[in-house]
């Protein structure tokens, strides 16, 4: 059944993401290049390394410092983090950094999958489209428990990494 905006917003709120912006797209199948997976893999690495500009959101994820460093340095994706397309490749999305965002795998990315699957067959699909590179529901933006992984500390680390890459 086709969802209108208020139904889509209610459903995404029921899935625990009441502040997640949605955008409606008309899915039209597009050919995907044969080497898309290698390019996607490389793009995800590039995206993760670009997160030095999203320190506040990363800090609210309360990652242990080792996980934070591994993430920012592009060495390893910490558990329970997902990188998603805003517009899927098969529906005309581009393999570009602007077409990606990060969120928690459970419950958010999995529930976004459910939200999209529930609309399958519709002429128009409501897609999650967070304003920033990282989506974290507002109710989870309540600060960390202090220690080494506070926002200030992580900001310092990110600034050092950015400086070492000549990104300042």
């Amino acid at each position, binding site marked *: 059944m086709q969802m209108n905006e208020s139904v889509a917003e209610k459903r995404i709120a029921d899935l625990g993401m009441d502040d997640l912006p949605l955008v409606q797209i008309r899915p039209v199948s597009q050919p995907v290049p044969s080497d898309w997976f290698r390019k996607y893999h490389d793009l995800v690495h590039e995206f993760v390394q670009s997160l030095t500009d999203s320190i506040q959101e990363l800090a609210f994820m309360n990652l242990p410092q080792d996980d934070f460093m591994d993430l920012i340095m592009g060495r390893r994706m910490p558990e329970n983090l997902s990188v998603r397309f805003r517009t899927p490749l098969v529906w005309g999305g581009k393999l570009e950094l602007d077409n990606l965002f990060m969120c928690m*795998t*459970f419950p958010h990315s*999995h529930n976004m999958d459910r939200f999209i699957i529930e609309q399958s067959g519709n002429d128009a699909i409501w897609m999650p489209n967070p304003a920033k590179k990282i989506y974290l529901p507002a109710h989870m933006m309540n600060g960390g428990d202090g220690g080494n992984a506070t926002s200030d500390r992580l900001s310092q680390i990110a600034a050092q990494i950015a400086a070492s890459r000549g990104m300042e």
Partner: protein
Amino acid sequence: MNSNEFLSLMKSHGATVYPATAARDITLANNALQTRRCAMFPAIFTDLYKSASAINLGNGYIFGPVECVRGTRFPIPSVVEINLEMVGNNALHGKTIFGRNDLFWFAFDAFGTFYMLDNLNLRILRKYDDPYRAMSDCLIAGKF
């Protein structure tokens, strides 16, 4: 390949394997799947679950018969929980979802066929006769 060889292979890729499941929990999960008209676990999964529950590699997950708690992180849901959420979806009729990554979901049916599904609409993208190949694809595609 057997389940121990599969687990060793996945560990060599860096997978986290959660502790084995009690036989009682496997039976309870199987009963729960049956009552919801999902496919019951094939023998290969029953065997795997005696050595492991959930398996995680990057954003690739094989779900276990019971929820896996992992410290302060959100728990890994059980197969039953995942499939309960999807009851009524026609694309999954007779199938049981057993895994996911950021691009695909994975399922099996009662006839021993395994499937890679599009995570946008659950369209079948690939069929497998070899369950270890399906599980490997699920986890390896999620590797960072």
